């Protein structure tokens, strides 16, 4: 069985400071992992994906995530937060069949000016 845990339901950072959004997963298989961002009343936009290649994955808008198998983690980071980063972020795990896509509950990121 697969599952995703996003450890913080809400994170607040000051503009220009680093962002860390935490995600832990559980999977019986070698998973594919994704991060999505959702701005208010919008669909989800893919930030980055891990698919068993490099463990450090770079995405759009300066975000990156590191896959750590020993810790079953896939935390999302950004060196310097921008006001436009304020949104909901979802960690997603995908297993061996197309229908088994598991979304985390989401982390709401607030950026304080």
């Amino acid at each position, binding site marked *: 069985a697969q599952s995703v845990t996003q450890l913080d339901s809400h994170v607040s950072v000051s503009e220009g400071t680093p962002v860390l959004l935490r995600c832990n997963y559980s999977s019986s298989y070698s*998973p*594919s992992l994704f991060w999505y961002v959702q701005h208010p009343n919008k669909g989800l936009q893919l930030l980055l994906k891990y698919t068993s290649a490099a463990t450090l994955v770079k995405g759009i808008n300066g975000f990156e995530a590191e896959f750590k198998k020993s810790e079953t983690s896939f935390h999302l980071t950004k060196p310097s937060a921008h006001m436009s980063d304020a949104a909901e972020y979802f960690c997603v795990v995908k297993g061996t069949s197309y229908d088994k896509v598991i979304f985390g509950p989401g982390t709401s990121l607030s950026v304080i000016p």
Partner: protein
Amino acid sequence: SQTIHQWPATLVQPVGSPLSLECTVEGTSNPNLYWYRQAAGRGLQLLFYSVGIGQISSEVPQNLSASRPQDRQFILSSKKLLLSDSGFYLCAWSAYSGTVVDQPQHFGDGTRLSIL
């Protein structure tokens, strides 16, 4: 490039009325298609997915149904809406692949459905 269109963007319907939400994908063939519902302040719940025309799988029992009359068209319907059907409905597609695990899903902008 591939695009996904969802409409309408917002919809207000009375309890007991019918529903039809449409989603179309352009720029790709034989996509996998998905309908999700997102309740306020919560994560996404997969409602339906389809791997081909006329092929629909339902993840949860509910008041809704889905159809795929054409390769790149996915419709979400209801004969009689309930108050609990309120939410944000998202359509998504992913590319068909022999190794589907690494194909991300791409989302439409969603439909905000309010039931009165």
